[in-house]
């Protein structure tokens, strides 16, 4: 029996190195040059001057604060709604809800942004309100819900329905079975979903820029306005900080998903 050898196996390895370099070198150079004392792309000497500049820019600090508040509230809401929804769909599917969730996922961001803007403007005619933090939060819940439902549903597929039935056979009500049996089994999925919702909320520019008011400029909006005027070392430094922040989130999420309380017991 002959073994199939991948053609040019060693060249494939060289290609893979180039591929990963293409994927990761741009961000790495960005991070390196954020420590460069010179404004130009020629290495001068190590300096933290651009990082100091970030912390003395009130607009950036306000944007970061707004982004954090918006991300935390919208993540809490979408994780709650999404988990309940995923559980309900797991009990019995609903083509309408699933279809709407998938459609919301493929809708171009700019279309989601302008349609939410149109909705808010239309309802303000009667309510006498204006765009602000809460419209951004509503918009973020609107687009992050699908991510939460998908991640929690993936976790639910690994849980045996017999578990809940057993709890109810032993006298638990439907609610008790959900709180004491299903929820603990879903924790890793819920945490992963929440972290995903947090990152998409923290990163979003397109939808946010359409529905944000004057008092709710987020970090990506401030970042974008600066980047639109051209590259600068200050933006490099913010980029490095954002990347580091997201890096911490990945490590946290890895830790939580690998530490799976009684995971194997729950499987079929």
């Amino acid at each position, binding site marked *: 029996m002959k073994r199939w050898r991948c053609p040019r196996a060693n060249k494939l390895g060289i290609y893979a190195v180039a591929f990963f370099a293409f994927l990761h070198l741009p961000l790495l150079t960005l991070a390196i040059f954020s420590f460069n004392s010179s404004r130009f792309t020629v290495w001068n000497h190590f300096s933290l001057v651009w990082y100091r500049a970030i912390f003395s820019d009130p607009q950036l600090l306000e944007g970061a604060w707004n982004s954090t508040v918006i991300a935390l509230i919208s993540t809490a809401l979408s994780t709650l709604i999404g988990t*309940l929804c995923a559980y309900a769909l797991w009990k019995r599917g609903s083509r309408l809800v699933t279809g*709407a969730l998938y459609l919301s996922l493929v809708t171009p961001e700019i279309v989601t942004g302008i349609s939410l803007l149109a909705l808010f403007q239309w309802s303000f005619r009667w309510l006498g309100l204006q765009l602000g933090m809460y419209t951004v939060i509503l918009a973020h819940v609107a687009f992050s819900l699908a991510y939460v439902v998908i991640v929690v549903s993936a976790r639910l597929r690994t849980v045996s329905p017999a578990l809940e039935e057993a709890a109810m056979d032993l006298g638990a009500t439907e609610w008790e079975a959900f709180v004491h049996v299903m929820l603990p089994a879903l924790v890793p999925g819920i945490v992963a979903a929440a972290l995903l919702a947090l990152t998409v909320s923290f990163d979003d520019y397109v939808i946010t820029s359409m529905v944000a008011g004057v008092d709710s400029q987020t970090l990506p909006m401030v970042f974008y306005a600066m980047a639109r005027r051209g590259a600068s070392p200050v933006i490099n430094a913010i980029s490095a900080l954002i990347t580091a922040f997201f890096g911490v989130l990945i490590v946290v999420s890895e830790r939580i998903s690998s530490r799976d309380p009684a995971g194997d017991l729950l499987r079929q």
Partner: protein
Amino acid sequence: MKLRSWFLVPAWFWLAALFAAPFAIILSYSFLSRGVYGGIELPWTWESYTRLFDPLYLGIFLHSAILAAGATLLCLLLAFPAALFISRTRRHKYLYLQLVMLPFWTSFLVRTYAWLFLLRDTGLINTALQAVGITHSPLPLLYNNGAVLLGLVYGYLPFMVLPIYATLERLDPTLLEAAADLGARPWAALFRVVVPLSRPGIAAGCILVFIPCLGAYLTPDLLGGGRIVLVGNLVQNQFTTSRDWPFGSAVSLVLMALVTLALWRYLRRQGEILV
């Protein structure tokens, strides 16, 4: 009422208030007239849709479709060998997969900005080229179609690698042994066995890249510097500077229809839901 019904209440609220209602408003706006100072007015009209047939706007749609198709093709060519490499390695497979996944977790905005930093006149690439003496004045690398294409490919490359990898991983190795036993050379086996069998992954990857590229707004705006106007930018423009909400709504709906059509065709062929 059963627990399930209670749990679906907030999701129904989301569906009605944040999904169906905005859609209905955009749909009705697209059939209204533009107000004198922006906004919308009666009477009902088809005009926004007939205006779409203006060569200017057809050109923008065509431009978007070509760039999205080009980005999809480039992603496929770049991603396939990488997916093959990951599926063939025995050691560190998890690490390689993590390296592909990593961009999902990094800011899309920052990753797009990275190219602005590298490609600008005083960026790393131009500085290096001039230092070595290959060029004497900075090459205009930014604010053109090439820069936008690069940005799209860079942004959505992981979406192509992962589904192709998933199908290659499930590939039955005995099929390849059979091909080799029957005298197929490695390259022939690659193109006549491996590639055809990974078609579901290729199709999934293509749809995952093509759909966001078609409606892209951020990449053409940042790396095209306002000179490259794609459908996404046209929509944004109508709702902000031009203040023509009916036309912007019509463009959005046509874009939505194109995206849904692409997805529907894919799902009908594959007969399974994504993810």
